[in-house]
């Protein structure tokens, strides 16, 4: 076999592997969507679930998923930005920072069910937050923080050191250089990572079963006072999310249309996660073009 034939063979093998991956993804998506989409109607998306009779929806679970996501991101985005900036721009190379990095790596490889049990013991029991949105958001932060921090650190580290020198040499302080030059330059990468992280959080079930709970009490969508017990915004109410709901109806659902509800909910979940992924790509590219080409703010 000569070099050209080897090359052809290798290319063929690589194409086959690539198409296999695409095939798996495509058939998975097709299966879930074909099973689930017929069920997805406006009514399905907006009505509460029913435990014993057919015709229930996923309205509250859907709302819970988004609310929990927003709260979790509100906590983890600033923390991960701070930690990432520290590790990339300020931390010296010593045993302390390598300990921090190792901890982050270990944290990011913990199984989510373990993180969930930890959250149950600490937030639900110890801090007496109960099964609540707050416990769920905190445990999602624990789950998400290492990956986001890693993403911020790597996005910043990929900016050339010449840019830092340029900023400092212009008489900018280190803080100004980091916040006004390096972070803006890294923003497309950071944003993409954040959105992908959001997608991961949105689909998370195991960490939430013991923290945000498995029940979705009726909500009063006319009262948005966060201290009112049935308010959608109340952070101390239990909140079953979409992913947890799918797990629950498949393991102990007793409504007659459990299979259909599960299929519909799965379709909605997967569409949401897909939207997060696609928007991450689009948004990252868009932001990069905006940052680098056209004149921005007031120019």
């Amino acid at each position: 076999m000569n070099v050209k034939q080897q090359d052809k063979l290798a290319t063929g093998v690589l194409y086959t592997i690539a198409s296999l991956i695409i095939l798996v993804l495509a058939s998975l998506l097709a299966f879930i969507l074909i099973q689930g989409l017929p069920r997805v109607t406006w009514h399905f998306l907006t009505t509460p679930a029913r435990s014993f009779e057919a015709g229930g929806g996923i309205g509250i679970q859907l709302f819970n998923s988004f609310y929990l996501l927003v709260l979790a991101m509100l906590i983890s985005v600033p923390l991960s930005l701070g930690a990432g900036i520290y590790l990339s721009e300020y931390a010296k190379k010593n045993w302390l920072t390598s300990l921090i990095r190792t901890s982050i790596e270990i944290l990011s490889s913990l199984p989510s069910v373990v993180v969930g049990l930890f959250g149950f013991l600490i937030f639900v029991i110890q801090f007496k937050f109960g099964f609540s949105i707050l416990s769920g958001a905190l445990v999602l932060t624990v789950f998400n923080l290492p990956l986001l921090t890693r993403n911020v650190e790597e996005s910043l580290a990929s900016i050339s050191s010449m840019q830092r020198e340029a900023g400092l040499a212009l008489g900018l302080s280190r803080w100004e250089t980091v916040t006004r030059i390096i972070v803006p330059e890294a923003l497309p990468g950071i944003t993409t990572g954040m959105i992908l992280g959001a997608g991961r959080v949105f689909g998370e079930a195991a960490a939430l079963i013991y923290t945000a709970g498995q029940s979705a009490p009726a909500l009063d969508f006319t009262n948005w006072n966060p201290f009112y017990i049935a308010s959608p915004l109340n952070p101390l109410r239990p909140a079953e999310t979409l992913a947890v709901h799918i797990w629950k109806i498949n393991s102990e659902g007793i409504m007659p249309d459990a299979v259909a509800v599960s299929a519909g909910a799965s379709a909605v979940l997967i569409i949401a996660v897909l939207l997060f992924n696609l928007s991450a790509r689009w948004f990252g590219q868009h932001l990069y073009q905006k940052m680098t080409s056209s004149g921005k703010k007031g120019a």
Partner: protein
Amino acid sequence: MATEKIITSKDVHLYYGEREALKGIDLDFMAHEITALIGPSGSGKSTYLRLLNRMNDLIPNIRITGDIRLHGQDIYAPATDIVQLRKEVGMVFQQPNPFPFSIYENVIYGLRLAGEKNKAVLDEVVESSLKAAAVWEETKDVLHQSALSLSGGQQQRVCIARVLAVKPAVILLDEPTSALDPISSSKIEQMLVNLKADYTIIMVTHNMQQAARSSDRTAFFLDGKLVEYSETAKFFTAPDRKESEDYISGRFG
């Protein structure tokens, strides 16, 4: 020609860990002149240049002794405001390093962060800086396009404009044209000569013709020492030291 000393340095030593990279440099710079620092790679000229705006401070494990003064003020005194120092002593690097923002934003970035908001002032600074850096004609219609869309030579001139916009007294250039083609290089060289009425320029260069053509004084570094420092015309025609003569005639380095 003015002969006021703007920067003085006495017995400057610099150590990377154990290694002594600068071995006692005495060197004074005259205001409104172009001084060229030449010498083979590793001779310490870039290291010395980066002492003058304290860019070496970022390097771990470094030790600096001696006395460097700008306008008579010790720039390594504990009370020195490094940020302020770097506003007075600007720097242009070997590789053009514009920020990935628009040309306009690149030029005014320093001023904007210093709090200048008046658009008329900013517009004026953009125009005058780009004109002084000899890149206005090429950029005036595309000010709001990315600086990265420019050629390397244009990028480097925008970087110089960015430094000029902060109005430093001294501009340090670390091999500013070594990554550029000859035409861009000569444009920058010509521009530097025009700038010396308003600025003091100190330039590291590997290009002997460039040093000979554009500088007023030349300092020759070898192995961490300053071998010879004299007026450029004299240095290139009748150097005092044998090493200088060997170097400019291409016998080593």
